[in-house]
């Protein structure tokens, strides 16, 4: 019954920062920037992703898991114990803040899949594939357990509340990262659920997203053909999985994946020169079901960089700026200037044209 679902709809504000030289900064900057856009959210969801925050465990997958009740934790941990080496597990550090009274049970685990154990034996999966399978399994099969972060040396922090409350709750000023993304949410049809906030992550992909993907229905069915289980029913989840499929599993480079997701128009493709036209035509033929149609601006973070992307006719705002080695991307220029008053360059990326910022080697 994968068609009988209630999709989650929301508007939002987003911001991202990357230090291309790898310099790590604490969470106060992104919080300050995001809080300027409070009117783009309604307090029903906010979140952050940060890269470079767990240098001590950088070779282990960092699972952030939320549980609705202790029994869900027991079941999920049972599964993890059988399939993973658990280097460390701990309750996520939080602080009491005004505006957050109820929250799920939050734990984090630093793990590595066991080489020859249990479900691993059924298929010859790489570590990454096995982690993806674990995320799908726990999120879709264990009621009340939800893995909301599963990458290495990175983490997502999200919940129901205004951006400042969520940042305070998760004590973000205590983390240092070289990439930060943040998101404030304006859901229109769902009561706040902590898992529904952004960013959405899988392995070290993280997505914050503003918009509604009008092609959600076919994007979802396309992903299901490749074994993805879309449990969250948000557009954001679709974006994350599409990047995972195209970049990690199909091996497309990021610019090529972006042209599949926000494809140029045929009239422009027809004017391209030989090889480029053939390649673009093939991309549209093969990845037509992955085309994300409808309004969106997204920030897509991964361990080596940050990508900003708009839909093919720019129906949602996205502004980018550069100051020295730092690249900023946000829904509004004002939120960039809040933390970087005089950038070297500020521009509004064109529709469908990705802004790609990568760490210097």
């Amino acid at each position, binding site marked *: 019954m994968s*068609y009988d679902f209630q999709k989650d709809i929301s508007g939002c504000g987003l911001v991202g920062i990357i230090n291309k030289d790898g310099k790590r900064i604490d969470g106060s900057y992104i919080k300050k920037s995001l809080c300027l856009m409070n009117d783009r959210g309604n307090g029903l969801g906010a979140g952050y992703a940060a890269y470079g925050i767990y240098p001590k465990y950088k070779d282990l997958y960092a699972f952030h898991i939320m549980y609705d009740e202790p029994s869900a934790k027991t079941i999920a941990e049972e599964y993890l114990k059988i399939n993973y080496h658990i280097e460390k597990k701990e309750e996520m550090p939080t602080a009491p803040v005004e505006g957050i009274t109820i929250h799920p049970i939050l734990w984090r685990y630093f793990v590595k899949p066991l080489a020859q154990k249990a479900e691993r034996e059924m298929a010859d999966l790489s570590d990454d594939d096995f982690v993806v399978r674990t995320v799908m399994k726990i999120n879709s099969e264990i009621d009340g357990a939800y893995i909301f972060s599963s990458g290495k040396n990175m983490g997502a922090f999200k919940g129901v509340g205004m951006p400042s409350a969520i940042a305070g709750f998760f004590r973000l000023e205590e983390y240092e990262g070289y990439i930060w993304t943040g998101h404030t949410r304006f859901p229109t049809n769902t009561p706040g659920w902590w898992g529904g906030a952004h960013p959405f992550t899988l392995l070290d992909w993280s997505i914050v997203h503003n918009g509604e993907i009008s092609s959600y229905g076919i994007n979802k069915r396309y992903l*299901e053909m490749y074994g993805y289980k879309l449990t969250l029913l948000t557009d954001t989840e679709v974006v994350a999985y599409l990047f995972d499929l195209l970049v990690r599993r*199909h091996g497309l480079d990021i610019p090529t994946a972006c042209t599949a997701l926000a494809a140029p128009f045929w*009239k422009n493709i027809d004017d391209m020169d030989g090889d480029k036209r053939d*390649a673009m035509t*093939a991309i549209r033929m093969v990845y*037509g079901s992955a085309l994300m*149609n409808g*309004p969106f601006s997204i920030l897509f973070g991964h361990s080596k960089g940050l990508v900003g992307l708009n839909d093919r006719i720019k*129906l949602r705002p996205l502004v980018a700026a550069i100051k020295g080695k730092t690249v900023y991307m946000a829904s509004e220029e004002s939120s960039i200037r809040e933390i970087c008053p005089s950038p070297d360059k500020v521009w509004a990326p064109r529709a469908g044209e990705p802004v790609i910022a990568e760490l210097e080697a």
Partner: protein
Amino acid sequence: MFKSLATPEFLAKIDTEKCIRCKRCIQNCGWGVYSWGGNNVLIDTFKCVKCLRCYHYCPEEAITIEDNPVRYRNNANWGFYNIRNIKKQAETGGILLTGMGSDMPYPVLFDSLLIDACQVTNPSIDPLREPMELRTYLGKKPARLEFEKGPDGKSKLKTKMPPQIKLDLPFIFAPMSYGSISLNAQKTLAIAAKELGIVMNTGEGGLHEEIYPYRSNIIVQVASGRFGVNPDYLNAGVAVEIKIGQGAKPGIGGHLPGEKIPLDIAKTRMIPVGTDALSPAPQHDIYSIEDLRQLIYAIKEATNYTKPVSVKIAAVHNVAAIASGIVRAGADIVYIDGFRGGTGAAPSTIRDHLGIPIEHAIAAVDERLRQEGIRNEASIIAAGGIRSSADAAKAIALGADACAIGTAALITMGCTVCGKCYTGNCSWGITTQRPELTVRLDPEIFAERLINLIHAWTHELKEILGALGINAVESLRGSRERLRGVGMDAQTLDILGIKPAGR
């Protein structure tokens, strides 16, 4: 002669006050309803099929064609046609023939499907101001693309793309053979297909030399009769279609009687003049799925792997599994013809009682191919009952890549869906080979009307996409989330993979 007890269906009437005795009705009627009585026009209303040719061509509007008010006594069980058909069969002892798609009142699910639209949270797009893309490629798509670095350091496509049919619009014209329709009707389709950037399909009657100039807009068909098939024919168009079945007559062959095989048709079909053109029910070299695979690859060999191969089947109960087998057998396109699809001639019992509707079939096939992870391996064409751009949009949302248009195209040529195509008397010059009738159908003039229709549907389809907030047809294809059912039972919703309205 014994007068038939099958009451006439229609009453042709001429207002003698208005009639100027111009005899145009006599000249125009292909059925012989009218004749000259010396002083006025005589009417044999038994022959009238209500095709309305005479009505349109009477300069004085003196003609009316009414449904015969004389019916058998009302009976909720024994309807007019139940009784009339028995009387006809009692007189002839034969199978009752018919043309066009079924006129039985089976539920049309298209009419219980509603399409979504954008409000507030996502914006609609104005097709008058923004590009709206309908281009569609039919054929096998690889599951993924590979790129490699060229000598110049630039990324180059490494994957070799299989052959595709490029369509500017997600429409094609349904196969209708020369023989079942006139050469002028085929030319009309060919001219329109070329102008519209889409394709027509020869049907199984071979390819007349006058259609050759349109070869880049033609799919050639190979059916059980193998009429007109040779290497040149296979290579003449942009794709080859193997016809297994037809929605209006699943499991049934065809029979074009010898009197309808004049020289021209005989030449095109490559059979002697005046012989019956028999299309056996099955293809006698295909008794199994592995036989189909051999024919698909024989055709691919004959066309040097440069053309997609389509397989056309009737929508029957087990269509999903059959389609899956066809895809695995190597077909690049699966053409699915719903039971409401048209025909030039079929036994009415078969037409009205065999097969399943296209809505169910498309939904089942698309879902099955996705479950098996092979949806990319073939394109799906929905045919059999597409009456409007809305039907087409719904079929695409259920999972079709493109829709085939047959009956609607004939309607632009004058057809009124009278259903008597099998008689060869079509007064509009469409389903006849009588030269005095076919000459009425000027391909240039009627192609313009057909182009108008497809342009109109294209505009409507773009409006629908715009309302949905999407600007490319691939974002509608298979996007069942944008459909809702009204008044459907839970199981039908489940088969279509859609939610009820309100959810």
